[in-house]
Each structure stands twice: as C-alpha cells, then as structure tokens.
C-alpha cells in the first residue's frame, strides 16, 4: 500500500486560513488503512482545524467527506464540492493530484506520502518498494536493495555494515538479509553474479502506462 502520514496542523492551517468554506476529503483505501485519511481522521482533522483557526481569529467552516478511492475518476464523480472555496485532500499525492485536476477550487494536501510499504505490526509500516519500473526482487530473495539499502547498492554490503546493521544505524543492512536468505535457499552462488548498473531511463520515461496499448485487455 501507499503509506501516508498527516502533516503538522500548523502547515495545513497556513493553506486553509485564506478560505471561507473548506471541504476535507478522505480516502478510504491506503490513507484509511494508514490511519491518516479515513472517516475518523477526517472528522478529527476538521475538529483540530476549527480549533486552530478560531484561535487565530479567522472564521473558516470545515466539513468532511470520504471517497472510496481518490486516485480514480469514477469515485471522484461522487464528490459534491458545490459551495466550497477550497478542498483539503486527505489522500496520497496521487489522490491530491487527480482531485486537483477535477475541481475548480484550490486543493491542498493534508498528508505527506511516505513510501510503498507493508505493515510491520499495528500502525507501523516499512518501505518495501521504490517503484523503479524493473523489479529486482527475483534475484534478491524478495528483499529490495533499492529501497532498503540506504545506498541502493545492487552488489552486496558496503563497508559501513556493522553487526548486520546499516551504517545509518536505523535499519538492518538489506544486503546481509539478502545474503542470509539466498543462503537459506541454497542460492549463495547467485550472490556472486554482478548486477549491472540500473537503467534509469526506464524510470524517467515511466510517466504513463496504458494497459490497452500493451494489449493486456
């Protein structure tokens, strides 16, 4: 899923205090799962903003609604933003962007989009994928070095690794994990294959993708 986190209320306040009636729009997919943009969070954010803006003696009205998914036009059609002079989107960047292109009032982000990740436990997530457009997990035993190695190294641990931890000190060394898992599957030999430099032109050109053109449907 796309992992998101709420921006500080002060930062959001700076967007909305210029307006009179602001509609908060949540997203019931990733943002809701990440406890940042579901129904509860939309209500809570509206409360927080009422409080914060009234302290600044500005009179802004806030109402809230939640869409099934903000990154699909089909669901945006259900949005009624009549009478509002700004929208605060509580979705990932893709949701903010699509919403902003479909209405005639300013749309502001209430969240920061962090990464593509997986749940680690209750309310915690780990980055697992950098959307590089050319998946390498087949040769790295399912652990992404582009995402989880601080340097995106493709050929094994750097000299900064210490007791299995990354030189940055905030994570396990991805390459020690990859090595151990390859070993477990009797695939240590594969570690010795030199991975060529990544072709970044793929990523650069990946701005749209049309499954029809690819003949998928």
């Amino acid at each position, binding site marked *: 899923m796309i992992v998101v986190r709420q921006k500080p209320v002060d930062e959001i306040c700076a967007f909305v205090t210029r307006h009179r009636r602001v509609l908060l729009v949540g997203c019931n997919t990733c943002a809701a799962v990440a406890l940042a943009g579901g129904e509860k969070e939309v209500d809570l954010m509206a409360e927080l903003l009422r409080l914060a803006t009234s302290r600044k003696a500005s009179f802004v009205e806030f109402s809230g609604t939640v869409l099934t998914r903000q990154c699909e036009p089909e669901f945006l059609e259900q949005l009624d933003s009549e009478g509002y002079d700004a929208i605060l989107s509580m979705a990932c960047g893709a949701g903010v962007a699509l919403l902003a292109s479909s209405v005639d009032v300013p749309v502001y982000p209430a969240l920061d989009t962090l990464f593509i990740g997986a749940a680690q436990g209750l309310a915690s997530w780990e980055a697992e994928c950098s959307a590089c457009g050319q998946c390498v997990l087949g040769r790295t035993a399912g652990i992404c070095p582009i995402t989880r190695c601080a*340097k995106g190294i*493709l050929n094994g641990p750097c000299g900064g690794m*210490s*007791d299995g931890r990354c030189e940055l000190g905030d994570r396990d060394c991805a390459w020690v994990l990859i090595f151990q898992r390859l*070993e477990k599957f009797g695939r240590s030999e594969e570690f010795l294959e030199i991975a060529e430099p990544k072709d970044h032109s793929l990523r650069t050109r990946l701005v749209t993708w049309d499954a029809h053109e690819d003949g998928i449907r």
Partner: protein
Amino acid sequence: MSLREALESGRFAVTSEVGPPKGTDVSQMLDTAEKLRGHVDALNVTDNQAAVMRLCTLAACVHLAQKGHEPVLQVTCRDRNRLSIQSDLLGAASFGITNVLALTGDHVIMGDHPQAKAVFDLESVQLLEVVGALNNGTDMAGNDLSGTPEFFVGAVVTPDAHPIEPQLAKFEKKVRAGANYFQTQAVYDSESFLGFMETARSFDAKVLAGIVVLRSAGMARFMNKNIPGITVPDAIIAELASAQDPVAVGIEIAVRFINDVRDSCDGVHIMAVGAEHLVPRVLDAAGLWEVPS
C-alpha cells in the same frame, strides 16, 4: 618504481594517504606528502572523506603529481553520476594519474551536508567494471574513446566485518569486476587477518593491510564502537591502557602487526587519521623507511 610495478614485481608495497583541505590552501597537504617523499609507493587522496565536503580529489592529485608524488585517486559514487565519474577518470588519466581506488562512499547522511541528494548511480563493483571498460577503450555506453587510459584499479575490503560471509563474497565480486589490488580497512588481529589472507590468496589480487596507529586506549574503544568493520582486540586495548607512553606503544603495536603479516600479504596501507607525523615513525620502526627504487 610505480605502485603497479612494485606490486606486480612482488615487492612489499607501502601506501599512505592525504586528505585534501577544506578550502583552497593545499600547503599542509603538500607538507604531509613531502615528509613521506621517497618512503611510500603512493599516496591515496581521499574523496570528500566521511561525506565531508573538501577540495576535489582530482585537483589534489594534480597538485601532488606536479610535485612528483604518485597519487591514488579515490573515487566514490556518492557525489557523482556515471557521466561525471567517467569524465573525472578521463581527466585524471589526461594528467597521468592512473592509480584509482574504487569505493561506494559513506552516505551523505554521515557528513557535513546531510541534506544533499545522495547519488549512488553506480557502486564500487560497477565502478570497477567501468574502469575496466575505459581501459579497453570504450565508455560505459560502448562509445569509443580517443586516447585510452591505463588505470591500475583497486578496491577496499573489510577483513573484520561481522558477519564476514557477505563481505568475502563481495570481495570475490570485486576481483571478478577487475580489482588489481585491495587496501583493507584497519586490521589489528594478525591471526584473523592471516585467516582472511588464506581466502584472499585463492584470488588473483594484491592485498595491502590497512594500518591505523592507535594513540590511546580511548581511541581504540572509540573505533570499536563507532567505525564499522574495525575490531581492536581487548588485549591491545589493555596494553594501551597500561602504557606510560601510549603513542609509542601504539607504534609498537602497528610494527608488531606488520611484522606478523608481512610475509603473507603484499604491502601495507597506513592511514594517518589526523596524526600524519606518526606515519614516518611507523615506517621507520618497521624497517620500511627505505623504498627501493
């Protein structure tokens, strides 16, 4: 005799390092180099070491070469993409600078510009292959070069890494990618180093043992705690702790290590880490003061 000639002829080689200044005043760097003139085969020039911004390595190498020193251009992948790395390498070769040490480089987060964008378009293993391509007369994209460099390219290895297996596998990869020689991370336990050399000997690459002179027990403990891949054994820490003159004992420890390993490796790489004046003392005490020409 160049570093390449020394290593290829099988003579025990000695390298040390100098760091470019933060600023434009290269006099101290040149002074340090001057004190080592005639006593080392080559001087590594660090590349924004520890991700701290300094005068560029290539310019520092040119200063040294103009004074008749033999520099080793350290190249990290942290600050430059593949175009920039290749063009710097060609620039170096155009000045006759052909010793290269290929490194991935410390992360920018570790240095004095932690907000910078870390590049890592390539990494050490790939960089070794790039140098190989340039030596074969083409760039990474396969385009022909007019004028072909003759780089003598090395890499680093950490013999005391924990766990060691992935580090050894990476060492093998670096050999496959064309590393002619290795300079190791600082090593202190001669027995464990000799164990590493047994593995290293099955590959066709020269190994220079990394030496950092310990100046106090505190420094040893600090390195154990903070520098990845360095293990100073407890016995050595105790020796330093009880010493009247810890610097003299630190030199003794380094000399003892060199004597223990000199028949099993191809040279030593002495890193000064802020105490350049100790390098000649170590070389002298180890009987390595006179480099045969």
